[in-house]
């Protein structure tokens, strides 16, 4: 019987939500689930603040909730409306199968992390690490099995979340300035990628990355 702390529970739930994201082809549902995933990660960050005595983590939690889980999905939803793209039919693997494999990857990362040395004294050890690795793998799967540029951005964001969760659960929290720098990078990255998507749509009249290698005359 495994007993989880609140932090471990929230990050594992965010990993499960990210896995559910792979199963839906509606980009809007994906964005909603991404928002929910990130809110859970923000809550986990807030919960980490108390045992580690790092009040600055509370500020970071607020920033994550505001920027990553509200501003970025809204921006991407706005981009989707502008270029009239709402559904990604997927490539290579059908979305349901991809979702099942991401659940299996969750189990795999659970097995993998049992062999990892875990630093003592942090809020969440093994299970936090397995949630982080699972988020990275899920994001990778999302990027591999989707065709549209918007989905690539979402997959990238999930990977970023995974790396953040891994760092959060394995350390005593990073300095505020680094966290804010990363957040800014992510925001700018998504902005640029969104604008690029918009430009790709304007030039090629589609955002299907499978067809981007075709020459345009």
């Amino acid at each position, binding site marked *: *019987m*495994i*007993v*989880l702390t609140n932090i471990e529970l929230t990050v594992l739930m965010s990993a*499960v939500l990210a*896995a*559910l994201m792979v*199963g*839906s*082809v509606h980009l809007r549902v994906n964005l909603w689930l991404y928002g929910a995933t990130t809110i859970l990660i923000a809550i986990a960050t807030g919960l980490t603040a108390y045992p580690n005595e790092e009040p600055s983590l509370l500020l970071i939690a607020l920033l994550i909730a505001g920027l990553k889980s509200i501003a970025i999905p809204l921006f991407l939803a706005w981009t989707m409306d502008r270029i009239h793209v709402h559904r990604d039919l997927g490539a290579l693997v*059908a*979305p*349901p*199968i991809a*979702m*099942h494999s991401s*659940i*299996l990857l*969750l*189990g795999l990362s*659970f097995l993998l992390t049992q062999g990892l040395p875990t630093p003592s004294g942090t809020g969440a050890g093994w299970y936090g690490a397995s949630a982080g690795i699972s988020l990275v793998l899920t994001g990778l799967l999302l990027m591999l099995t989707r065709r549209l540029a918007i989905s690539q951005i979402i997959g990238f964001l999930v990977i970023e979340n995974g790396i953040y969760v891994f760092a959060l659960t394995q350390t005593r929290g990073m300095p505020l300035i680094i966290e804010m720098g990363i957040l800014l990078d992510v925001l700018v990255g998504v902005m640029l990628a969104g604008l690029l998507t918009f430009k790709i749509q304007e030039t090629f009249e589609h955002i299907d990355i499978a067809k981007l290698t075709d020459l345009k005359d």
Partner: protein
Amino acid sequence: MITELIHWLFFLLSVLLAPIVILGTIRKTKARLQARRGAPILQAAFDLIRLAQKGETVSSTASWIFRAASTIGLCNVLLISWLVPWLSFAPWAPPADLFLVVYLFAMSRIFTLLAALDTGSAFGAFGASREATLSLLVEPAALLGLVALGATSRTSDLREIFSFTNTHLQMNPAIWLLVGTAIILSSLVELSRMPIDDPTTHLELTMVHEAMILEASGRNLAIIEFTHALRMSVLFGLSVQCFMRAAPAVWKLPEIIQAMITIIGLLTIAMAVGVFESLAVKLQWRRIPEFIAYAITMSLLAALIAVAGGIV
């Protein structure tokens, strides 16, 4: 002896009443959300009585299977309702292996399919074909979820898994919630309810269950309708049992309060289904695997938890 009698009494009462009340509640909720007054809750019972009094037409090409199938289906579901712990109170019953129960469900489905094919009507055939496809997709979800429960509680007897004296699963809310969700999602498919099939239309493009029973009439139809409703109450009841066991406090409550929670839970699920059916749009036939995939995912997660040894 007396408690056993009371159990039998309440059990028979719920087998008779639960299907009608649950069907009535779903219809009432839908009517209310469409700003209609709706039929009385017991309308399903009046419908059954009306059907039973009507004459019956049987196609001249139909064999004995056509009329026997509905009776076999009813007996099958009555047996299932006796074996499966879908109420928190139940009379004595022999041990019910979970594989037995899953394949009893499959058996009643087979006879529905045979009856649909028997008359040789095109509607029956495509209804049967669709139903066979759906059952193929939904079976792993239900089976995997129940096996996950069984593996955690070290038994494959469904009664033992759901008994309140079995402490393996007492402090294990996650697995109960996941299996409950998996059962409710797969029962929506199994019972051909809203996102899969609209039970109120007879449009040939969409119907699954209705297409199969199109040839049935009179008493035969009454039996089929009641069987379907009873199957619905058993499946919804099973998911209610899963959900209520997720709260560790429920395990120690006296039996009468558990029974009340069961009844309230059944009505809540019926209302939730009604609300969902008013809001949801019927899925395209090709997109149905995506819906079922979520049920399988819930079961997979439950199986992962079972492998990990249970998570609090």
